[in-house]
C-alpha cells in the first residue's frame, strides 16, 4: 500500500461511486468485521479528504482497511475472459451505433422518400417510420451515455446520431 498515492485513494473511491461518508461507512464496516477499533464516522469523514489530498497519510490500520476493501472489490470482478468478452461486446455495440445515420440524415431520407410519386406506404406511415427511427436514435444516445458513465470512461461514442 506504500505505492498507493493519495490521488489513487480518491479515484478508487469515486470509481466505486462512493461519496466520502460512504467510504467512511465501508471502512467502519470492514473494521467492525475484523474486530478493529477505528475513528467515529464523523472523524473518518474529516480524515478521508485529508488522506486523498495528501495532507496526511493514513496510519497503518487504515491502510490495512483500505487494502481489505480493495481486495474484496477485486475478488468481485468477473474473470478475465468475461471482462474481455464484455469489452468486445461494448466495442461492437458502439461500432454499430457509430454507423447509424443521424436524425438529420433520417429527415433527408424521409423527405426523399416522400417525393416518390407513390410508394407501398402512405406519407403518414413514412413520417411515422422516420419519427420512430429518430426516437430510437435519442434512446441510443442516452444508453451510450449511461454505458460510458457505467464504464467510467470518457470515450466519445462517436455515434453519428449526434450529427444534426
Amino acid at each position, binding site marked *: 500500500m506504500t505505492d498507493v498515492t493519495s490521488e489513487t485513494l480518491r479515484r478508487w473511491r469515486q470509481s466505486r461511486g462512493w461519496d466520502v461518508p460512504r467510504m467512511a461507512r465501508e471502512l467502519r464496516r470492514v473494521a467492525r468485521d475484523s474486530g478493529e477499533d477505528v475513528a467515529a464516522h464523523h472523524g473518518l469523514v474529516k480524515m478521508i479528504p485529508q488522506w486523498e489530498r495528501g495532507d496526511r497519510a493514513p496510519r497503518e490500520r487504515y491502510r490495512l482497511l483500505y487494502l481489505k476493501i480493495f481486495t474484496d472489490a477485486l475478488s468481485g470482478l468477473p474473470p478475465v475472459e468475461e471482462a474481455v468478452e464484455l469489452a468486445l*461486446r*461494448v466495442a461492437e*455495440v458502439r461500432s*454499430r*451505433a457509430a454507423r*447509424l*445515420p443521424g436524425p438529420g440524415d*433520417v429527415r433527408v*431520407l*424521409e423527405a*426523399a*422518400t416522400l417525393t*416518390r*410519386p*407513390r*410508394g*407501398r*406506404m402512405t406519407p403518414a406511415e*413514412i413520417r411515422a*417510420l*422516420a419519427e*420512430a*427511427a429518430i426516437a*430510437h*436514435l435519442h*434512446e*441510443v444516445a442516452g*444508453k*451510450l451515455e449511461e*454505458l460510458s458513465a457505467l464504464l467510467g470512461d470518457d470515450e466519445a461514442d462517436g455515434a453519428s*446520431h449526434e450529427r444534426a
Partner: protein
Amino acid sequence: MAELDAHIAEVEANVAVLKALLASDDFPDEEENPS
C-alpha cells in the same frame, strides 16, 4: 446492453425500410400506364 441493442436494431430496421422505399422501382402507375 440488450436495451441498447434493441434500439439500434429498431433504427437499422426503420432506416432500411426507408431506403428500400426510396430505391424501390415498384410504382404501379408508371408500370401500368406506360406513355
